[in-house]
C-alpha cells in the first residue's frame, strides 16, 4: 500500500469536493495534510473528518491570491510542523459557462489570479523547502477543457492552459532537485462547483454524452493525483494526466 507517512502535504481549495477527496485519501496514507481554503467552516469540516478517522490534519485559511498571506501561512506551517514536501494546487472557481462578450475585467482577473497567480506563488512559497530536502512533488489541477476547448468559459479554459505551460516550465527547472511537477485534468465531476454551474439535470445530461455514460466520482479523480505521489513515479514529470472521458461522437 502507498505510504505517505512523514510527508507534509498542502492541498489548496481542500474545502471543495475534489480537494476534500484528495485531502482525505492523502491523510489515509499517513501524511500530515494541511487543509487550505478561503472559508474557515469548510476547512474545519474537512480537518474534523480526517481527525475522526485517526488522520493528521491542520487548517490553513487564507486567500490564495494574496501572495504575502500565502507566504506567511507556509512559513508558520514550516516552523510548526516542518517543510511541505508535497503540494496539490487544487483551488479554483468556475467560469460559469460565460461567453467572451460577457466576461468583464473583474471576472477575467479573478479567474487568472486564483488559478494561475495562486498556483504560481504557492509553488514559490514551498519550493525552497523542497529544494533543501532534495525531493518534492507538485500536482497542479487543470481541466480537460484546456485540451479540448469548449464553447464557453474561455477565461477558465485559458487559465487552465496557463497551468499546462507552468507545469512544463517548472518540470524542466526543478528536475535537478528531485522535484516532479505534473497535473491532472479532470472532466466534469459531480461537486459543489459543477452542481452550481450545471444543476443535477445538467450533470445527468453530461453523463449521457460520455462513452461510459457516467461521470467520475471525486475519488476516481483523486486516484490520478495519487499516481503522481507514488514513490515509483519519481521519473514522471511535466506530464498531464487527462482524465476527461471520451465523448460519443455524433456527426451533424
Amino acid at each position, binding site marked *: 500500500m502507498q505510504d505517505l507517512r512523514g510527508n507534509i502535504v498542502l492541498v489548496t481549495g481542500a474545502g471543495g469536493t475534489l480537494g476534500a477527496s484528495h485531502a482525505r485519501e492523502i491523510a489515509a496514507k499517513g501524511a500530515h495534510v494541511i487543509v487550505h481554503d478561503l472559508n474557515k467552516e469548510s476547512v474545519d469540516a474537512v480537518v474534523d473528518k480526517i481527525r475522526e478517522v485517526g488522520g493528521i490534519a491542520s487548517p490553513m485559511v487564507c486567500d490564495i491570491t494574496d501572495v504575502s498571506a500565502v507566504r506567511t501561512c507556509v512559513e508558520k506551517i514550516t516552523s510548526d510542523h516542518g517543510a511541505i514536501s508535497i503540494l496539490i494546487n487544487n483551488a479554483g472557481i468556475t467560469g460559469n459557462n460565460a*461567453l*467572451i*462578450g460577457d466576461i468583464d*475585467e473583474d471576472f*477575467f482577473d479573478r479567474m487568472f489570479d486564483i488559478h*494561475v497567480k495562486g498556483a504560481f506563488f504557492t509553488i514559490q512559497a514551498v519550493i525552497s523547502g523542497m529544494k533543501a530536502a532534495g525531493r518534492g512533488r507538485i500536482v497542479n489541477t487543470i481541466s480537460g477543457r484546456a485540451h479540448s476547448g469548449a464553447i464557453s468559459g*474561455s*477565461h477558465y479554459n485559458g487559465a487552465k492552459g*496557463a497551468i499546462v505551460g507552468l507545469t512544463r516550465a517548472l518540470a*524542466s527547472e526543478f528536475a535537478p532537485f528531485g522535484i516532479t511537477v505534473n497535473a491532472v485534468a479532470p472532466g466534469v465531476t459531480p461537486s459543489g462547483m459543477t452542481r452550481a454551474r450545471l444543476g443535477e439535470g445538467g450533470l445527468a445530461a453530461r453523463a449521457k454524452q460520455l462513452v461510459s455514460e457516467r461521470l467520475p466520482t471525486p475519488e476516481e479523480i483523486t486516484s490520478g493525483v495519487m499516481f503522481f505521489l507514488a514513490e515509483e513515479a519519481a521519473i514522471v514529470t511535466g506530464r498531464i494526466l487527462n482524465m476527461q472521458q471520451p465523448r460519443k461522437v455524433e456527426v451533424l
Partner: protein
Amino acid sequence: MSGVFITDGTGPLGKALASYFEKEGCKVATHPSNGDSKSIREAIIKAGPIELLINNSEPAFERLSFEQINEKEFSAMVSSVIRTAFFAVQAVQPVMRILGRGKIINISSSAPVRGMLKGAHYTAAKGALYSLTRSWAQELAPDNIRVNLVAADVGLGTAAEDGGGKTPFGRSISKQDIIRCVEFLAGSGGNMISGQEIIVDGGFAKLGF
C-alpha cells in the same frame, strides 16, 4: 484580406507582419500589447472592418529563475500576453460578426509544449493561448470566425538557457518562417482549419516533452 489588426505591432515580429500585410495591400492597424482593454477596444473600433486579428505579443523579459519572478513581473506578463489577446478578441467579435467572417491568429511559443528554463511566467502566459485558441475556435465558429495558433520561436535556441544550440535543421527560426505560416492560415488554405496550433520551431519542441 482587407483589414488587419496586429497587437504588439512595434515588436520585431509584429513589425514584420505589419509590413508584409501592407505590401499585400491590406489596411493594417497596430496596437501595443499593453493589456488595457479600453484602449484596445477603441483602437479596434477605430480601425474599421477587421478581417484578420493577429494577437502578437513579444514581451521582453529577463531570464529569471522561478524563485526570482516577483508579483509585478508575473502580472506584467499576464497582462501583455493574455489580457491583450483576450480583450482584443472580445472587441473584434462583434466587428467580424457584422462582416460575416473573420480569422484570428494567436502568436504563441513552443515553450508551453517543450518546457523552458528560466521563464516560467512567459511559458504560463503563452500556454494560456493554446487553450484559448481551442475554446475560441468552438465559441466563434457560429460567427464564421476561425481561430488558430502559430508558435513563433524567432531566434529560438540562441539564448544560453536554451542550450545556446540550434534547431535540428542547423539554423534558428526567422521572421520570414513565421510570416509564411501566418500567410497560409490567413489565406484560403486556412478556411477549414480552426482550433489548431502550428509550431514553427524546426522540430525543436519534439526534443522536449
